[in-house]
């Protein structure tokens, strides 16, 4: 076996980390997650290469945020 510097960093994500991911998508693609999600449902975001992740994280964030008593945003 070759010598490698490989190692696994594993952890449970917090709501804040998911929010940071959504904000990164928003900066990269120039729209809010809510705008993206509405366009995604209409099939208007085929140019977004991360649409599976963005829609998945957004729905998970909304659900958890609402569940925790916060406002379902961003």
């Amino acid at each position, binding site marked *: 076996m070759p010598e490698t510097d*490989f190692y*696994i960093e594993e952890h449970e994500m917090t709501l804040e980390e998911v929010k940071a991911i959504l904000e990164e998508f928003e900066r990269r693609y120039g729209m809010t997650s809510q705008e993206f999600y509405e366009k995604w449902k209409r099939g208007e975001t085929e140019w977004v*290469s991360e649409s*599976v*992740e963005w829609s*998945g994280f957004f729905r*998970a964030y909304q659900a958890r945020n609402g569940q925790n008593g916060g406002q379902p945003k961003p």
Partner: protein
Amino acid sequence: MTYAEYKRHIRAILTNYGRQGILVGATPIKFFPVQGISPNEGGIVSARDSHLVFQDGAKLKVFEEVRVTDGEIHRLKYSYHYERLGGYFFRYEREESADLLRKPEYHMHVIVNLPHFNAPPVDLETILKLIAANFYLPDVYARQIVGQEIHLTV
């Protein structure tokens, strides 16, 4: 298989490729619960910050939304995006769709985001085998792929 066992399975697959020197460096695997799925029965599995990094600098970005039902692993959504330093990429996805001709539920992209080519269901293990066989095994087949230049206009 339970969700905990699935997590261990993912770890074991990645460790195998790390030991071979195909995957290198820090490999970030993150988990996040999904409403409607007990944390013991599934959630989001993601490797997207620094991605999985290969020996030649190529990267694999992973997203799965997983639910375990009656011991079966169901990947409700997924995205496996492999990209080489020169910009060549392919991406296998499962995503809901209202237009199954233009966008089959199980599809793949190659080099550009459109079209969505129909593709069989895949998982991380299959993707890593495919990548290793095509880009990292020192045989004649892989040597015919790596280093190719592509100039095209759609």
